[in-house]
């Protein structure tokens, strides 16, 4: 009986963790979108005011960030600094290197990939417009992410706990 109870406890903990992890992705997605917006605002300053060359601008922006979003900026900046590639290729490298750690949805990734297509190619005005466009699109994504979090985060947490209880009852 003791073993059964211990097993049920482990099952409940596992299902609850799965539920909380799933719910956490919704919360992390909101955080990452917000950090992307902050990062783009910082990049805007580096390009618009400081005229910092792109490799250093991306690396400096990455250093200011806390979430997995930092990896996109750091990896792409480092790729641009060390390899003779275009900013678009470096940006793709950064996204691919960080994607597994991100909670962003494909739609969000599509926005930042599109942003990379025009990165580094034009004058200040063109670069700032590209940043503004990406920020506007991320703002829409942020609204959707908040709504998704509101709808689904609690659902997954509850499902995780209830699922564990149901499985435990079946086993007992």
């Amino acid at each position: 009986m003791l073993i059964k109870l211990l097993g049920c406890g482990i099952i409940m903990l596992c299902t609850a963790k799965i539920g909380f992890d799933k719910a956490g992705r919704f919360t992390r997605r909101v955080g990452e979108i917000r950090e992307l917006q902050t990062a783009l605002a910082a990049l805007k300053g580096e390009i618009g005011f400081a005229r910092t060359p792109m490799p250093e601008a991306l690396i400096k922006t990455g250093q200011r960030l806390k979430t997995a979003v930092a990896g996109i900026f750091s990896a792409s900046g480092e790729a641009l600094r060390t390899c003779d590639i275009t900013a678009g290729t470096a940006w793709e490298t950064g996204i691919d290197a960080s994607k597994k750690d991100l909670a962003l949805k494909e739609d969000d990734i599509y926005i930042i990939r599109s942003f990379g297509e025009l990165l580094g190619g034009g004058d200040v005005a063109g670069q700032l417009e590209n940043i503004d466009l990406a920020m506007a699109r991320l703002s829409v994504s942020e609204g959707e992410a908040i709504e998704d979090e509101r709808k689904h985060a609690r659902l997954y947490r509850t499902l995780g706990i209830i699922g564990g209880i149901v499985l435990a009852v079946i086993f007992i």
Partner: protein
Amino acid sequence: MNKEKIIRYFPEKLQRILEATDLSKLEEIRLRAGKRCALGIDGNNILLDCTASQAELEQTMQIISRASVYAYIEEIKNCFVTVEGGHRAGLCGRAVISGGEIINLIQISGINLRLARQVVGCADGVVRHVIGGRLKNTLIISPPQCGKTTILRDLARTLGGSRRVSVIDERGEIAAMHAGVPQLDVGEMTDVLDLCPKSVGIGLMLRSMSPEVVVTDEISSGDIAAITQALSCGVKVIATAHGDNFEQVRQRLKLGDVAGEFECIVLLSRKNGAGTIESVLKADKA
């Protein structure tokens, strides 16, 4: 010349050709959209079996400008970018004009990477005339392509070893600044004001860097007031000017009283190759 550093800017297919080519006498690499790439080797134009597309020129432009056109826009407006090593990529494309001034160059149609070669010691024959006794205000005169800038750079390097030298490098050809660092040796005690018009820059450097010598390239009549200001501060001026002889330069640049201030006039030619010292005229004021 570091071959690896030069060829890395170009499309892979061209890189492969360049890797297999003797580049010891290479002077320039030219890309034109839709046309065969060309090399300038020892004064000859050599067309390669390799065509560059416009997209490849844009890609090359991005790599040359480190994906930071906005950071090099002042150079790009003047149709060039200085890259690491002091080499200069000349650019051709469609000019974007605003208010009568070029503000950008887009749709790049031609790139010409000209290799910078510093000739250390090429001014040795001039130095003794410029410094002999005391430092003299010097004007180096020659037609184009006779090595004025190369001699001027070497003079700056020599003088900058022991004196406070300010270089006003309006066209970025003397020091070939890249990311704030001179790519060519202009002397240990030399300060460089990059891409600034001489008429403004000379006054700025007089106030900010307190130089003993001002060095500048290809002066025009619009720069004479600034040169007069430097001379009146007791600062020595070493400059170059296009021309065949001093009299022609004096009239064309309307040197006026400033003409008498130049105590050493160096005339160059290509008689025995660029940088041949034709004559040195000295008007000792002491």
